């Protein structure tokens, strides 16, 4: 009995002493948290897409409070939550601008129309398929069509069409670059929202070789170069390249392209 009393007393004594110590430490080393960070974190979309250039929504919230980021950096936020964020930060409504992020476009129109080199039976992920003999498509630039970009998109902006080609919905795309990082073939790139025209092919093969593997690739025929009124298109290494700074969205190149390798967003 005596032993038990001793144990209970000594343990409660110890816990009381440690409790006092902890109480003192928490007072002494208290870090003052800005309540605004939590508020803004709640208002941000919380998908951690990285479009703002920071690692996630909570780091953007911290940056906003610390005045290291602009209130317009989040391209995903709805307009009303942006207003609420501005309110929390003490900014006026005039500080809010609607920023239009660039959108992702898929620079391949092949899909089912691009011929297969062999039948792929491995793991259904483009990154694995690409590492196996550089993909199962005859064209070594072609979209493999296994949907890795669709999985990567947190906003459901990419869908696979019946032709096994991913298509980006401009309404939903926020320009976070997640699909660009996921694509092992490097065929998704960003396009300014004001621009309408892009080349839907990445093949640097010569014309006859392109025709052999796919009917919708750029064959470097120069027709678009000749028709462009502002000389925005050049052929570089057998592939048409549009200088988007010069492009005036006249869509003449789209009409003239014999393989329909120039597309409109």
């Amino acid at each position, binding site marked *: 009995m005596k032993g038990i009393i001793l144990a209970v007393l000594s343990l409660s004594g110890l816990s009381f002493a440690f409790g006092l110590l902890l109480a003192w430490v928490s007072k002494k080393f208290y870090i003052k948290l800005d309540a605004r960070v939590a508020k803004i974190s709640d208002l941000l979309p919380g998908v951690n897409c990285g479009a703002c250039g920071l690692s996630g929504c909570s780091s953007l919230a911290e940056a906003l409070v610390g005045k290291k980021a602009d209130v317009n950096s989040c391209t995903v936020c709805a307009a009303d939550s942006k207003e609420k964020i501005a309110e929390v930060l003490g900014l006026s409504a005039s500080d809010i601008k609607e920023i239009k992020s660039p959108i992702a476009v898929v620079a391949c129109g092949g899909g089912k129309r691009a011929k297969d*080199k062999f039948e792929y039976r*491995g*793991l259904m992920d483009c*990154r694995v398929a690409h590492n196996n*003999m*550089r993909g199962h498509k005859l064209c070594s630039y072609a979209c493999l069509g296994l949907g890795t970009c669709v999985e990567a998109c947190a906003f459901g902006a990419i869908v696979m069409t019946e032709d096994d080609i991913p298509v980006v919905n401009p309404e939903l795309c926020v320009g976070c670059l997640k699909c660009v990082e996921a694509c092992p073939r490097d065929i998704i790139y960003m396009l300014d929202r004001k621009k309408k025209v892009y080349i839907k092919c990445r093949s640097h093969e010569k014309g006859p070789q392109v025709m052999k593997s796919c009917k919708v690739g750029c064959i470097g025929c120069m027709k678009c170069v000749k028709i462009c009124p502002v000389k925005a298109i050049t052929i570089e290494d057998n592939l048409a390249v549009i200088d988007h700074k010069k492009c005036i969205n006249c869509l003449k190149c789209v009409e003239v392209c014999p393989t329909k390798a120039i597309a409109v967003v």
Partner: protein
Amino acid sequence: MSLSFSGGKHIPGYKHLTQDLPVVTMAAPAEVIIPLSQHTGAVCKTLLKKGDKVKVGTKIGSSDKLISSTVHSSVSGEIKAIADYNHPVLGTSIAVIITSDGKDELDASIKLRGSVSPLGKEELLKIVKESGIVGLGGAAFPTHVKLTPPKSIDTLLINAAECEPYLTCDYRIMIENPNEILKGINLLKKILGVKNIVVGIEDDKLEAISVLRNKIIAKSYSIKVQPLKTKYPQGAEKQLIKAILDREVPAGKLPFEAGVVVINVGTALALYEAVYLGKPLYERIVTVTGKSLRSPANLKVRIGTKFSDLIEFCHGTSTAASKVIMGGPMMGLAQFSTDTPVIKGTSGVLVLSEKEAPDYKEGPCIRCGRCVDICPVGMLPFALSMCAESKMLEQAAQYNPRDCIECGICTYICPARRRILESIRLIKAVAK
């Protein structure tokens, strides 16, 4: 006593198909396709153009990058084209296509070296590089780079385990050319300046062990022949070092970190031929086997011979082939065409029947733990495979995917036929 490492398993070898068949020399084919990328490292550049005449052993490609090697013509004739062609590893690669004139004339640079003993280390290394010698086990790492380790090393291991099923090319050369191999090993000893040399052979190749031991005793060389337990992946570099020396090579590091250089037995023979006979690496022994094939064989073939020529030389297929693999069945690569050339790393061409290579359907993981028991590097393959399945690729980093040597035994043993190795490859590709 046979040494080994932990994990791994004895798997059916199917070596009886070819192990007693002496190496047959196949005549030079009418056309060879020599890819300019046959090794780990930089792609060679060629100075030749269409229409140029070449002879057997003429240098057709080289590179000034550190990790690269040289490429030689394997027939005498004329360059038909320099163009993209099927490649057994890369899918497509730039290659020199040569039409043979049937004369098989040797290049003037190929001549017997009268005496080898005055050659110093630097001269030998130069011969290794100029002869285009790369590791013949399969990965084709340039040998001259391996022979100049940045750290001091104390042991040379000769890898003669040949743990991949079906393959018997290393076994045959050990029985047919033991003297040449031992001379090649002595050249390696001279270049590396090591005293401790061990040849590791799996204990199902008793004849090779006794042949090599007898020759070593007869010549009183100081080379040890170490029998190893017959199990896969005994011939994997790190597992071989663990088995023989009980040393571990850190993940992502090369064997010299543990003070070892590992050279394949076929490479030792190629080194002998390059130094004593002045012969660059333009031919190699390839095991052409599989139950679909009418007459499997060990063939000495020119680099650049098409797989279809090899299959034809072995009298074609008796049953419909379900899969053609370059290399062994465990780590080899399934081919999409037989119109693909033999490269320096081609140790075997397997023509497998439907029964040998069935198409399995993947099932869910039943957590039986067999892959954990068998993994030679002590990983948790099932956990990685489930991470990949549920697309938790970043979280998979906690299971150290970079340790994986991609031997494929987890996928072999899995009762649910899960594509574990492919999942690990996906995780590795994302982690890069």
